[in-house]
């Protein structure tokens, strides 16, 4: 299989909707704006709570709608290395005929320590043809690690990983200092992409590789404008976007879904109204 590189730009963390028609309808509305689609993100996609069968349904619908036009990032991490491999194998069966790029997104510290990570990905290279994008988020590791375990991929380990042929990038969530250290570590690999997984970090210190965006489910065109440097009104957008992101973080999956398909009974009414008001401002 030929070597390919992850795209730059807007990676939409697709909200995982179990209803197939709604999912396809939503995908249709964002697919032409996104540079890649990210499935089962731990935050907006209920990535951990969906069963493998449910996930396979979503992958199937996604492949059907995208029709090989966009690269797809698939979050594969599970509670153990074995389960993660199992996920990869199952998904690989489904995406085998998809002629665009597929990337496995993996949060290795969820089931593994820093020690031996490069060896583990060397082993993975013999199990799958598709490359990996690492996922570094101390928060998702927080609940399952002991007090003395590291919650971030060590910078020196990242440097080693960046030299592996099947590791192509990293979705980064964390502070700006670590972000700079990580950039520094992978400097010798110009095609190794570091995406911001935190919209707030991106809005304050935009990087050149791109953003993994949750709010792009609702306002993909606004994000695209920002990334395309096509923003006369960027200063206003910045303030409203930060406000929206804050509300979406509190409202979570239910709020995002309500903003896309109309308010559901489980969605907090005041958050919904606030978000609608910000969206009005963003769209004018």
């Amino acid at each position, binding site marked *: 299989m030929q070597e390919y590189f992850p795209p730059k730009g807007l990676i939409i963390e697709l909200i995982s909707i179990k209803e197939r028609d709604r999912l396809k309808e939503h995908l249709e509305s964002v697919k032409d704006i996104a540079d890649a689609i990210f499935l089962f993100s731990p935050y907006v996609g209920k990535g951990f709570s969906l069963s493998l069968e449910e996930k396979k349904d979503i992958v199937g619908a996604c492949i059907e709608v995208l029709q090989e036009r966009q690269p797809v990032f698939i979050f594969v991490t599970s509670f153990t290395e074995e389960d993660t491999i199992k996920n990869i194998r199952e998904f690989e069966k489904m995406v085998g005929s998809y002629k665009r790029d597929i990337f496995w997104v993996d949060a290795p510290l969820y089931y593994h320590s820093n020690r031996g990570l490069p060896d583990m990905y060397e082993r993975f290279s013999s199990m799958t043809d598709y490359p990996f994008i690492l996922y570094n988020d101390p928060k998702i590791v927080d609940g399952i690690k002991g007090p003395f375990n590291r919650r971030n991929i060590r910078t020196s380990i990242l440097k080693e990983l960046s030299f592996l042929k099947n590791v192509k990038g990293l979705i980064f969530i964390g502070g700006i200092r670590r972000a*700079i250290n990580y950039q*520094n570590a992978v400097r010798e690999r110009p095609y190794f992409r570091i995406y911001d997984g935190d919209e707030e970090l991106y809005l304050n*210190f935009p990087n050149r590789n791109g953003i993994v965006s949750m709010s792009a489910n609702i306002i993909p065109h606004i994000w695209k404008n920002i990334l395309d440097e096509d923003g006369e009104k960027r200063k206003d957008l910045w303030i409203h976007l930060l406000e929206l992101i804050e509300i979406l973080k509190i409202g979570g999956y239910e709020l995002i879904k309500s903003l896309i398909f109309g308010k559901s009974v489980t969605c907090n009414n005041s958050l919904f109204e606030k978000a609608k008001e910000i969206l009005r401002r963003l769209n004018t």
Partner: protein
Amino acid sequence: MEIIDRAKEVLRIEAESIAALIKRLGSDFEKAVNIILNAKGRVVITGMGKSGLVGRKIAATLNSTGTPSLFLHPAEAIHGDLGMVTKDDIVIAISNGGRTIEINRIIPILKDMGIKIIAFTGDPTSPLAQMSDVVIDVGVEREACPMGLAPTASTTATLAMGDALAVVLMHCRRFTKEDFKKFHPGGSLGERLASKVKDIMRKGSMIPMVSEENSIQDVLNEINKKNIGATVVVDGDKRLKGIICDGDIRRALIKHNNISSLKARDIMTESPKTVDENQSAGEALSLMEFYGITHLVIIDKNRRVKGIIHLHDILGREEFRINAGILPSKGTNN
């Protein structure tokens, strides 16, 4: 505290953006240097907005380090300024995204003229990069300003790359300190204006000096010998009595049919302008400008002469030579 923390982050990002350029320097940079070294013309720099401001600074740096350069505004270029560019020139086009319409519009025209294009861009796959002969990657991983509203790290990186280019070219041409001074009269002048009068005045036997009783012949000899167009006139205790400069002799010649019988006291200007030795050269220059004179005498509290200073001691003869270089040469009608 948040203010300082934020400022630190910005500086870290900017520092990192420059450090990251080091790894990316390679054969393209060498190619750019060779193209400029072999060019018969000038380096024309173009860029819009903040890139334009950076371009102007790079042009200034190139000029002062021995590489003739000028800035071309891409929008003005379309409206006629392209005429400034000759086929012997090299163009450096600066655009972080490489998609600036105004720049990309003039590049094909420049290429048609046979001009080599060097792109300074953050996107080596951009249209600008594709049209250019050499691409210098000045991309940064991260901007230090929200949403990249104002380019920050990217302009810093571009500026630093411009400096690297200018300095490397300077070394390749073996541009010396003397050359640098020649192109920076303002720099050496600034240094001189800040110095004290006592540091640059003529002292001791360097001071042209005659007594009131000396003949005109003695005065002329002294002026001729000390070569600053004037002599001070003193009494027996070397107390300042007056000054005789070229103008005083000219006026005496007009006034008297025969000046050979005159004494120094007959033609001297009494109470010449003086300056304290601890005043700055800049202040001395202001006095000369105010009174329309070219000499000032330095005396002590008893009015004894300690030194003399001429306009050239402040401004330096070298600057006048450089300026002379741009005056019309002999035989021209200008």
